[in-house]
């Protein structure tokens, strides 16, 4: 019965995507638009001597996938604020459904959505000529990393929705975590030691780093990949638990 509740709530979140044209547009246009912009702007840029033959667009593909997932954090924060303002969270709290069941369904639904968005980036990039190595096992591992990153994004969304009084404030607050992650963990092309050290504090750095290695043909048994998996797992767990605990304290009001 508990599973039925979670399944029903996941369905609600997924139905919202294809029934709300605005959300569907953001879901599809954001990864597609971002990939196309990078392809046309950076597809012929070959300036990095450490990566001969790789265009700047190709360098950015793994980071763009990570960004598509992190962006979900803002969508989650917005949705929670809207549900709260509409009294829906209060209504759900009056049923024998635990906050863990509700928030768990939110995490699972957004894991799917985040991974789906990232795979749109990958698919379009491959169509545009990007060569992703790693095969199916590599792709499976990529999806695990993206899933963990999505959990982190939902956790950050919960923290944002706890602090923000309304949806407008939530979208502004989200930028506090999105922008540093976007710059340091995703798109920064050339690292010096300082920026590299800052980037290591952003969760998507570990996803971007691993995705780059897998797509560039690294062996899946490379220790750094599993070290990254461990670090990202710990970060996502800490952030999502903190997010759930903080959001629960709002009593869904």
């Amino acid at each position, binding site marked *: 019965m508990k599973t039925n509740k979670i399944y029903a709530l996941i369905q609600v979140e997924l139905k919202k995507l294809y029934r709300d044209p605005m959300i569907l547009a953001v879901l599809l246009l954001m990864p597609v638009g971002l990939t196309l912009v990078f392809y046309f702007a950076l597809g012929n840029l070959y300036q990095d001597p450490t990566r001969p033959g790789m265009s700047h667009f190709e360098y950015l593909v793994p980071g763009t996938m990570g960004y598509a997932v992190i962006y979900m954090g803002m969508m989650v924060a917005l949705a929670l604020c809207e549900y709260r303002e509409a009294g829906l969270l209060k*209504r759900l709290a009056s049923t024998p459904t635990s906050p863990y069941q509700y928030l768990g369904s939110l995490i699972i639904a957004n894991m799917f959505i985040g991974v789906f968005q990232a795979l749109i980036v990958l698919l379009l990039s491959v169509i545009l000529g990007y060569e992703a190595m790693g095969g199916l096992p590599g792709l499976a591992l990529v999806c695990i990393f993206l899933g963990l990153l999505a959990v982190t994004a939902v956790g950050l969304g919960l923290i944002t929705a706890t602090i923000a009084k309304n949806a407008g404030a939530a979208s502004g607050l989200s930028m506090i975590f999105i922008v540093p992650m976007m710059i340091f963990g995703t798109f920064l092309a050339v690292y010096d030691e300082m920026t590299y050290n800052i980037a290591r504090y952003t969760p998507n750095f570990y996803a971007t780093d691993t995705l780059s290695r897998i797509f560039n043909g690294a062996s899946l048994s490379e220790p750094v990949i599993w070290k990254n998996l461990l670090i990202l797992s710990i970060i996502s767990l800490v952030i999502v638990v903190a997010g759930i605990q903080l959001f629960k304290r709002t009593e869904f009001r």
Partner: protein
Amino acid sequence: MENARKTEIRNEIVIEDLEKNYGGIKAVNGLNLTVKKGELFGLLGPNGAGKTTTISILCGLLAPSAGSVQIAGFDVKEDLSKIKERIGLCPQEAAYYKFLSGKENIELMGILHGLDKATLKNHSAELLSQSDFADKARRRAKGYSGGMVRQLNLLMALISDPEIVFLDEPTVGMDARVRRRTWEYIKSLKDQDKTIILTTHYIEEAQSLSDRVGIIDYGELIALGSPGELMEKHQSRDLEEVFLKITGRRIAEGS
């Protein structure tokens, strides 16, 4: 012991010395009240009197600052999940997913209350057949009129066939015709032996529907009795006059 249990069951809702504080403000101030099984109890009061706060505590949405509340024999502090299985809340603001259909909204509430598929299907069909939007039940609720949305809000509270129903301003925004029909519907719930707590700003609604009425102001219960008893006690023609006399006097005393 057995007698005590029977008393608890007969008194479906037992509130003792209930308090809810927000900083220095007492939203509910030492409320004592019992509601019997099958009773339709009207909770009246001016804006900000503490009606919605009280209902929120009874539904487990807010923790009380002091005092105790027992619903169907269960304590809100200890057995909240058992209480939530037995109650249905129709909140003041119509709370529903706009991108879901009316039917989907109603059935979601049933699933969250743990109904099995067959029961859910039966209850949903039965409720929808009594509503004004049966023919539009599969359309997205976003396009529903104000009256339909209010009905949807009510039906979402009833899908689980709850023993105790909290109706917080259920007829706000309904036109006179739909409101009258909703009154009849609420009366039919009472005939099903459901215990109902109704808050409303329409005093004639409370007078027409309630077995007993409690008037609260500044979080305190200031009058309690059947509409007839209150009218007799305060020598008034109707409940509205009683309400104005009592709450008006407190305003004058306070100024």
